[in-house]
């Protein structure tokens, strides 16, 4: 319960963006609507608005990332904020106190927002609990826990292609076990009220009790799971997070759970295919699908900038708390 409270300030405005779990539907809709406005900024000759002029945003990345970091950076720059990129090697220093020392140093430099990516679940919450009152924290992915901005850009992409969330059947396919993206997607889809969320994958990559804990339908067979779905959300096989023999081979994984032409044909004819990237071609998705007409993968990347602009400006555009 506490986790949910920390995202809002005393007046009920969004202060941090750490997880989608527990956020009201209206907050998600406000983010999507605001992002719709920011999408037009990229059509301008000058792709920049003066909204966050004078603000300093720190990309605090404890884990490698290209797409997420660059889209956060681009989003901040298009809002006219100043951006500082800090990549921290987790293995060398940062434990407990040294992390807090680092935060306090950044606070002393009068930064306004931290974008945090960390391989430990709960890292963004931890930082949000310890920062000065004027600082906002956005979770850019923490361990296996959450990647809320990715899920919001996925929702934005879905909404651009489908009129309404309510009638949709959405399938999330692959490595659910290690995926913070999947967790955030499921919370977002359920909050926005889609008709059905399915997760499809091998027994070894879907945690037990997934169906009950997340309110989804679990399938281990693509033939059954893909039937009549409107939206297919592929996940990357996270080889770097896997310990032990969870899969016999990538070839067999592709045969069973890779998205091929034949499998895609089981879904509705107007189904769209999403993937958070980076793509393992020939492992979880066939190249001709990733580059095909039903793929919206590159749109997701563009939408990522608009969504991140929306979240940053909503969080930093809070009215002062002491207003009567």
């Amino acid at each position, binding site marked *: 319960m506490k986790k949910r409270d920390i995202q809002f300030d005393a007046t009920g*405005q969004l202060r941090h963006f750490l997880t989608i779990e527990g956020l009201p539907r209206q907050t998600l*809709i*406000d*983010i999507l*609507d*605001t992002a*719709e*406005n*920011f*999408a*037009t*900024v990229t059509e*301008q*000759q*000058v792709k*920049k*608005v*003066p*909204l966050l002029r004078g603000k300093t945003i720190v990309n605090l990345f404890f884990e490698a990332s290209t797409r997420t970091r660059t889209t956060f950076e681009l989003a901040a720059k298009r809002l006219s904020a100043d951006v500082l990129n800090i990549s921290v090697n987790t293995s060398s220093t940062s434990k407990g106190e040294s992390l807090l020392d680092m935060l306090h140093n950044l606070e002393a430099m009068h930064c306004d927002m931290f974008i945090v990516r960390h391989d430990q679940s709960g890292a963004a919450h931890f930082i949000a609990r310890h920062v000065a009152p004027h600082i906002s924290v956005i979770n850019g992915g923490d361990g296996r826990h959450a990647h809320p901005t990715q899920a919001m850009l996925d929702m934005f992409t879905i909404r651009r292609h489908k009129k309404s969330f309510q009638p949709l059947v959405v399938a999330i396919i692959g490595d659910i076990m290690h995926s913070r993206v999947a967790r955030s997607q499921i919370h977002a889809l359920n909050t926005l009220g889609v008709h059905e969320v399915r997760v499809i994958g091998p027994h070894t990559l879907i945690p037990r009790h997934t169906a009950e804990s997340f309110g989804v339908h679990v399938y281990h067979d693509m033939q059954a799971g893909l039937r009549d779905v409107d939206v297919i959300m592929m996940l990357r096989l996270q080889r770097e997070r896997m310990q032990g023999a969870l899969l016999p081979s990538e070839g067999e994984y592709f045969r069973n759970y890779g998205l091929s032409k034949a499998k895609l044909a089981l879904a509705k004819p107007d189904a769209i295919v999403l993937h958070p990237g980076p793509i393992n071609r020939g492992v979880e998705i066939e190249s001709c699908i990733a580059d095909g007409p039903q793929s919206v993968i590159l749109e997701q990347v563009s939408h990522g900038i608009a969504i991140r602009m*929306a979240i940053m*400006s*909503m969080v930093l*555009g*809070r*009215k*002062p708390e002491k207003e009567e």
Partner: protein
Amino acid sequence: MLTLPNPTDLLTAMERDLRKLLVERKIVQPCMIGIHTGGVWVAQALHHALQLQQPLGTLNITFYRDDFTTLGMHPQVQPSSLPFAIDDKHIILVDDVLQTGRTIRAAMNEIFDYGRPASLILVCLADRSGRELPICADIIGTHLDLPPQQHVKLSGPAPLRLKLQEMT
């Protein structure tokens, strides 16, 4: 209590004045842009009356406001849509109420981020007291001299009505 004029009556005179100004300045194919939300309603009426060929553009100046940190975001406002290139165009910018001039400052900044117009003409339904920036309109429906606590608001789109609101 001051009675406010009917916008429909004002629009007839505004259309006439605007036609005259366009002839004076030898502008043949202007593009019109309305500022959300009230300015778009006024612009729709003028755009229709003048039978302009270019589609109407709309501007949401939220991202260019100077009071963002005290007022926050308004996600419900429609996005900007400029269905024509701005470069070298004669632009007619339309808003409902001109007061401080800050909205127009923001709108001009946004327009210039899309391109370099040949000229700008400012059209406002109501020009009221309270200017804080050196901005004036070329075409004005009505002048209103009001104390600072009184606000003029346009309701619409049909029928258009000007209303006085007392701010506490």
